[in-house]
């Protein structure tokens, strides 16, 4: 195989606006961004609660969440597959092999990442931040919001890490999406399956895009932190 020629072909595909290729990229971004939109608000609220409140079972939930951080995505996919398949409890919803199924899977994968990172961000907050807000008359909502803003770079790290994980995961998307061209074929499943059929150029082009997304997210985070000019 001629690497140079294949790479050149990959960039030609990318910049010529190859419709199939760009469809894969758009599906990936659409699914992962929607999953983030759904997962982020409740996960941050729950993480804040776990970091600040004390109630029975709190410790257990925190440890479980940290354990789930490294859960293999293919296992999440397997469980979701069993739930969504025709014999499964949610079989009647007919969600298997749809974008919705992929979104559900990615939400499940993102949640522990968001919650665990939010917990450590909030626990790292200066206790005087919330006390000051409360003493100045802030409601519970406002003092929570103020505290989250004070640790916003930690919370942003939670969001970027979760996004990085779901946008690049193969296992779950493959299990519950099924790699259907134009519907559920996203960047990772396309790379994993199309390359094995000899579509090297497409694989390289998509791999390049995925790297770019991952790097872009990290640069955005680093830039935001730099702007913050923290001590």
């Amino acid at each position, binding site marked *: 195989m001629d690497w140079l020629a294949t790479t050149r072909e990959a960039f030609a595909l990318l910049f010529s606006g190859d419709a199939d290729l760009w469809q894969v990229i758009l599906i990936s971004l659409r699914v992962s961004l929607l999953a983030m939109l759904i997962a982020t608000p409740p996960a941050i609220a729950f993480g804040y609660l776990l970091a600040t409140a004390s109630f029975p079972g709190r410790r257990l939930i925190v440890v479980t969440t940290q354990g789930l951080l490294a859960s293999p995505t293919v296992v999440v996919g397997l469980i979701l597959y069993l739930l969504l398949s025709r014999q499964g409890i949610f079989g009647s919803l007919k969600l298997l092999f749809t974008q919705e199924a992929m979104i559900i899977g990615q939400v499940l994968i993102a949640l522990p990442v968001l919650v665990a990172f939010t917990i450590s961000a909030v626990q790292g907050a*200066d206790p005087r931040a919330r006390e000051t*807000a409360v003493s*100045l*008359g802030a409601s519970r909502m406002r003092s929570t919001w103020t505290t989250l803003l004070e640790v916003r770079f930690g919370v942003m790290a939670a969001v970027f890490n979760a996004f990085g994980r779901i946008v690049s995961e193969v296992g779950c998307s493959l299990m519950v999406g099924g790699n259907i061209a134009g519907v559920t074929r996203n960047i990772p499943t396309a790379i994993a399956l199309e390359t094995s059929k000899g579509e090297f150029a497409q694989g390289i082009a998509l791999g390049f895009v995925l790297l770019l997304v991952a790097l872009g997210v990290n640069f955005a985070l680093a830039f935001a932190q730099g702007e913050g000019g923290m001590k």
Partner: protein
Amino acid sequence: MSGPILVVEGIHKSYGTRRILDVPVLTLAAGESYVLTGENGSGKSTLLRVLAGLEHAEVVACRYDGRPVDLGNYPDWLRRDLIYVHQHPYLFRGSIFDNICYGLRARGLIKASYEPLVREAIAWAGVGALLDVPPHKLSGGEKQRVALARARVLQPRIFLLDEPTANLDAEARQQAIKLISDLCDANRTVVLACHDREIIELPRMNRLNMGRGAIETWNGGAVCV
């Protein structure tokens, strides 16, 4: 003078077998100033934080303005009358202006109504020349002045100030003392935890000396229990 604004009976707090607070009764009169002295660990900060609802203690009874109050389930309306300022004040990210208007915005004021109040507080605290400095870059004394302005702009009836002049150099200390004596003169109730001679000797200052969680002397005289 005027009647009591805050009466707290039977304040107790301990960690394990260690007694941190044991005050049979604390009465604060409206418009009076009080300074809590006592060695390190005698419970000054803890007492202020309990009164501010930031820390829990057993309290037998508490009355504010004659009205019964549960300090364990701190009412929002009491928070609006009473403000605690940390020994090392915490300034939020943003600007000095944002910090000073925080409490006013929490009270639902719109910009047109809070802006003149904030400008007045900035002038009062003498931080007008610092408005472009990011809050976390301010010196300890400047932070303390911003925090005092942030509290005063809310016109609370009671100020609880924890060692406002500790760790400040001579000039910063003088500026803080000037602001504090101004608060004391403004017919507000001020309670300070403090080791600073100059503050202790301010005119009309009531001196409460604490030892091992208890108030041992009141203006030099023994406290009868």
